[in-house]
């Protein structure tokens, strides 16, 4: 044994504890045997950002898992409370940085409720189109990331990015930015779509099912994938509802709850689409929910592009600057690709929101992470986390 090894305990004692670790439970099992405690993250290839899990293992089985957040915390809510209503929109882009369009919509919806602003019909259709495009690209890349976590050397991820790129190109030509779109405004959208843009959406939409078929033949029947995903990370419908899980994760457990259907916000009640439901609530169901939802999104897009009316894109009463809603509060929520994205606003009659709160689907979907992972191996933890679909910008805000 080298001298370095001998005084390791001393060396370890000198290193101050990392942030956020106050874990009083000692890593021992019922028999008092020492367990293996590992810290997955914040620098880990598959925690999707700077997320950390304190995992206690017995052999390779998880007996305890505590998520640690806050590495990307920037107090988005405080920033928004100190700025005008308008100034928060570009910050919402950076919450779930894959889906800036839906984030914009969620916030715009809450402000419209708070201030009683209407939205012209054409703007509502444009919102539906961009939101469904966002859903397509988010779900496609999520499946890519999930497969990456299963060790697929990036092939599905690259296919997903190939398609995502086309959608981002559309976003760029519409809003000027690929990811941080900053596109929606209270009472409408910022710029109008051209006929050419809509034609491109129609074209992309026509080609998208081919990509989904490709995905399906590459993945859906793969025995290894089925072995890795089926029966792993099972979430019961009761626990899913109680724990506030939302989006594809809730529906994979068989709970029929889609905010697009339930609230019918925007013009969603004009489109015919179905809500896929899973029966097992495992990783495979969560994966398949995304695939099936993409197929439904394609249908919605088809109808929206076909039916979009002509007209203004901004409510004439809406003002860009100096919005001062009456004192009061409003909670607006939408079905973002990750789940139920809510914005809670309290106005005190001034130009800044008194209270600005984001209900982050990514964070709340993680509530049951430990329940899903207990008794499974490290390999499953990674896959289960991947199937939850989190973006750390939204988890930590």
């Amino acid at each position, binding site marked *: *044994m*080298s001298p*370095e*090894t001998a005084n*390791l305990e001393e*060396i370890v004692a000198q290193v101050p504890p990392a942030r956020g670790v106050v874990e009083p439970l000692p890593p021992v099992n019922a028999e008092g045997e020492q367990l*293996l405690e*590992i810290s997955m993250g914040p620098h*880990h*290839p*598959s925690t999707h950002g700077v997320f950390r899990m304190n995992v206690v293992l017995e052999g*390779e089985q998880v007996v305890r898992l505590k998520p640690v957040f806050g590495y990307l915390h920037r107090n988005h809510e405080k920033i928004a409370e100190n700025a005008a209503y308008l100034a928060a929109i570009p910050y919402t882009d950076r919450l779930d940085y894959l889906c800036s369009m839906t984030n914009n919509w969620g916030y715009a919806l809450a402000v419209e409720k708070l201030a009683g602003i209407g939205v012209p019909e054409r703007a509502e259709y444009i919102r539906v189109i961009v939101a469904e495009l966002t859903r397509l690209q988010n779900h496609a890349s999520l499946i890519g990331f999930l*497969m*990456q*976590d*299963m*060790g*697929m*050397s*990036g*092939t599905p*991820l*690259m*296919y997903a990015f*190939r398609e995502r790129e086309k959608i981002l190109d559309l976003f760029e030509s519409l809003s000027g930015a690929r990811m941080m779109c900053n596109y929606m405004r209270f009472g409408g959208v910022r710029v109008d779509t051209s006929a050419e843009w809509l034609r491109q959406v129609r074209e992309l939409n026509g080609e998208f099912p081919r990509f989904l078929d490709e995905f399906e033949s*590459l993945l*859906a*029947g*793969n*025995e*290894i*994938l*089925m*072995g*890795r995903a*089926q*029966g792993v990370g099972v979430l019961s419908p009761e626990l899913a509802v109680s724990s506030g899980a939302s989006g594809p994760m809730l529906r994979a457990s068989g709970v*029929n709850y*889609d905010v697009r*259907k339930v609230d019918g916000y925007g013009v969603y009640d004009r489109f015919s689409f*179905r*809500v*896929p*439901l*899973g*029966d*097992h609530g495992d990783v*495979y*169901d969560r994966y*398949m929910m995304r695939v*099936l939802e993409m197929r439904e999104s394609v249908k919605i897009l088809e109808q929206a592009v076909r039916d979009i009316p002509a007209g203004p894109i901004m409510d004439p009463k809406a003002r860009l600057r100096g919005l001062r809603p009456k004192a009061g509060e409003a909670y607006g929520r939408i079905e973002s690709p990750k789940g139920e994205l809510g914005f809670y606003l309290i106005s005190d009659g001034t130009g800044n929101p008194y209270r600005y709160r984001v209900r982050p689907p990514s964070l709340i979907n993680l509530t049951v992470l430990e329940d899903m992972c207990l008794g499974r*191996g*490290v*390999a*499953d*933890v*990674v896959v289960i986390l991947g199937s939850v679909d989190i973006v750390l910008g939204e988890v930590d805000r």
Partner: protein
Amino acid sequence: MTTQAVDQIFVTIKHWLVLQSPAVIQPAVSVLLSVLPLLIIFPSLFAVTTVLERKGLGRMQNRYGPNRVGPYGFLQPLADGIKALIKEDIVPVGADKLVHFLAPLLLVMTAFLEYAVIPVGRNMVVADMDSALVFFFAAGAAMEVSIFMAGWGSRNKYSMLGAMRAVAQMISYEAPLILSSIAVVMIAGSLSTTTIVERQAGYWGVWPYHWYVFTPWGMAGFVLFMIAATAESNRSPFDLPEGESEIIAGYFTEYSGFKFALFFLGEYLGMFAISGLAVTLFLGGWAAPLSFLTFIPSWIWFFAKLMTLIAGFIWIRGTLPRLRMDQLMNFAWKFMLPMTLVVIFSAGIWRFMPSGIVRWVVCAIPIVLLYWLLGRALMGGRKLEKRTYRFAE
């Protein structure tokens, strides 16, 4: 020059050089001249393969792959090598320095040992032993030690997990690997690799009729051997020991710089060696695949077949997700082992039946039957199936 002369050109050169040297050192020169080319050729092959793999994977994923350094990116390994050399060599504070240092060296050394018994061309084998196969598997088993050394010496939990996985996996898959080659040994009646190649020589018309891969037991044996080989060389979908998305990089998490590169070298050398053995055992070794192609030198054929198998490795890597530890073990003991046993059984029938279509069918039946049964059991036992979903309006 005749084709014969071209085929034997390296052998001739070596003999000539040995004869030029003084008689006292002639054995040493002979050994050196046999070993040195291997030490040069296979690492170069490693360099080329890394580029080809990255380009191939890239094309499968609809991108270019490396194409910036040199023509078509083929100087990429040079750049990578320089980068690995000039990187800081970090040894963790808590590591067992000696073990940590020795592990990559030992890995590469044992990988090179395996090449001693692989005939890369007609009359081109370093050590033509009677028990070549035994030697090969013994050397292969030593790799596990070095991998465990790396995992243990790093004093890192991820390394430890990776090393544990690696040892468990490699020991489990050694059984089907050896058993599937036993079928070949039974038919060939020899453990010597050169003899095995010679037994597969000869053509039926233009077809290489005697290759063992064209028998039912050989075909199944070849597939099983390749699956086990993938697991032995820690390649996807059996790359659990390094399982990058789960345990960072497994046993070589704590390695950097050139030691890290050595691990890569070791992994690829192991892959070449085991593919070389597969070529030798099932694909007729250095023999040409069609009778009219015999004018091409034997060593070209060997490397062509080797690279074909490597391409298969790359293809699989680009397609399949990784297994989980328990699935890996189940697969090894509940599927691979019974299958290899039935392959041996089938080879036994083959040995004693008169040749003809009947023999072919009779030998194929038990294999197909067991495959069907085991496949059903594996999938049905855990109810793996494509699902149908319900929709709410």
